[in-house]
């Protein structure tokens, strides 16, 4: 301890104190302060850039989600529109079919009734004609009977032939 105290040099202590004070002052002024400021600025810059990138990424994600939603909606809309159109088409075809059917049925019915009435009128005319012919034949038969037997037969024959032509 005595030796240690003897080794302690008060002069060196004073000189060292002055030099250290000076060194701290100069280092803080010319080195540490500008270095620390620049380092902090740089770190803040990096942090800012990272934050901005993160924000951009989030925005991008939002945008993408929006896009996906839009796409999904559009697809659903298209789907529903297609379905509607398909339904409409089927309905129209169905309607057209039924309408055509009824129309055809109507036409067939009309035609049938027309045919029926034509047939009826034709039958009536035929009846009249047959009746007239029968009477005519009867008249001629009755008229010739008295004159000639053969002639009567011949007459009937010819009359019948005429009737066929009619």
């Amino acid at each position: 301890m005595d030796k240690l105290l003897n080794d302690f040099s008060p002069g060196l202590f004073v000189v060292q104190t002055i030099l250290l004070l000076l060194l701290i002052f100069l280092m803080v002024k010319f080195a540490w302060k500008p270095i620390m400021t620049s380092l902090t600025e740089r770190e803040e810059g990096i942090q800012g850039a990272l934050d901005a990138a993160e924000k951009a990424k989030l925005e991008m994600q939002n945008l993408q989600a929006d896009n996906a939603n839009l796409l999904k909606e559009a697809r659903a809309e298209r789907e529903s529109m297609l379905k509607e159109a398909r339904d409409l088409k089927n309905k129209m075809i169905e309607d057209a079919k039924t309408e055509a059917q009824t129309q055809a049925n109507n036409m067939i019915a009309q035609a049938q009734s027309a045919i029926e009435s034509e047939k009826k009128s034709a039958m009536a005319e035929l009846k009249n004609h047959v009746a007239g012919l029968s009477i005519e034949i009867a008249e001629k038969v009755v008229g010739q009977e008295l004159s000639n037997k053969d002639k009567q037969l011949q007459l009937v024959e010819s009359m019948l032939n005429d009737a066929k032509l009619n």
Partner: protein
Amino acid sequence: MKVAKQTFKFYSLVLMLFVSAFAMAENTTDPVENTGGQVDTKEEVEAYILHHIQDSHDFSLFSYTSDTGERKHFGFPLPVILWSSNGLTTFMSSEFHHNDDGHVIVEKNGLKFAKIHSKIYELDGGAATVAFDETHHATNAHRVLDFSITKSVVGVLLIGLLMLIWFSGLARQYKKRQVPTGFGRVLEPLVLYVRDEISRPNIGEKHYRKFTGYLLTVFFFIWILNLLGLTPFGFNVTGQLAVTACLAIFTLIIYTVSGNKDYWMHILWMPGVPVLIRPVLAIIELAGALIIKPFSLLVRLFANISAGHIVVMSLIAIMFTLKKSLGVVGATSLSLVLSFFITLIEVLVAFLQAYIFTMLSALFIGMAVAEHDHEHDHDDHGHEIPDAEDVRGDFI
């Protein structure tokens, strides 16, 4: 690249100047004494090591005894600046002719001075030579205040200048670019290391900026001087009690001045203990804060660095002391291997001591400026949940 080249040129120029200065360094012959020439025995080795551990008034590189028996020294004389009883006295250390046992008397300013074991003594009035008692203490001379530019002061100046050049260069680089190039790229991570691993975690996010400048200065100052001590120039600046004491007292002043109300409250009137114990605790705490903390700082650094120097030199001295028992080759190789590995460890110690000094300084400052919030969070059972600050406090 261009800047790096210029820097390199600049440093080579500085180196050249340095070397040529050494080349021109005094080549004095000293016929007065040639007893200290050879270092062979254990006693001589011990004396040599103890002499080296001390500060020196010369910057001597090496010395040898010529064929004619003259002792030749290569090195610088350094200015001696004394505050004697007749006021300021200055002369060059070469006037002592490398004498270190008080036989050469220098007369200046009407006073007589002698150098004994690297300390300069002023002879009391009328005495012509230094008289010694049995324990080799001077009886008719007293120490003077010695503000000389000693070897340690040269080391401090050199390292201070280097630090200024290096780090102001780094500071200038940031004006031009975001990421430094060249040597600055080596320095930047070190600065960041001190800031992020020593200053910020120990002092706390809120206050660390104010003290980082001091901590950075001290860290690089101690570290580079420790490393300089491992070079063959033989500096032992951080092994000088005066230097480590100065550093420790700076830390003491800083944490004493910046201590907040809580800090002084915990020292002088410890809350949470019985009132009768408080004064006793206050004495212990005061002794701890004002004496033990700085003392541990100064002794740790001084002892580690001095011990390192002593061990390295002792291992080198194996070469001479074990020459008889191991032979020249055996002793030399043993000495080389051992001193090589110890030097490697010393490189680690150089960093470690700088780190520990800075870390503890930061810790002490952190304790002084820590803000204890007394509204702690409480858990379900009403116990306090310790926050980070408390855990650190417990750890300290």
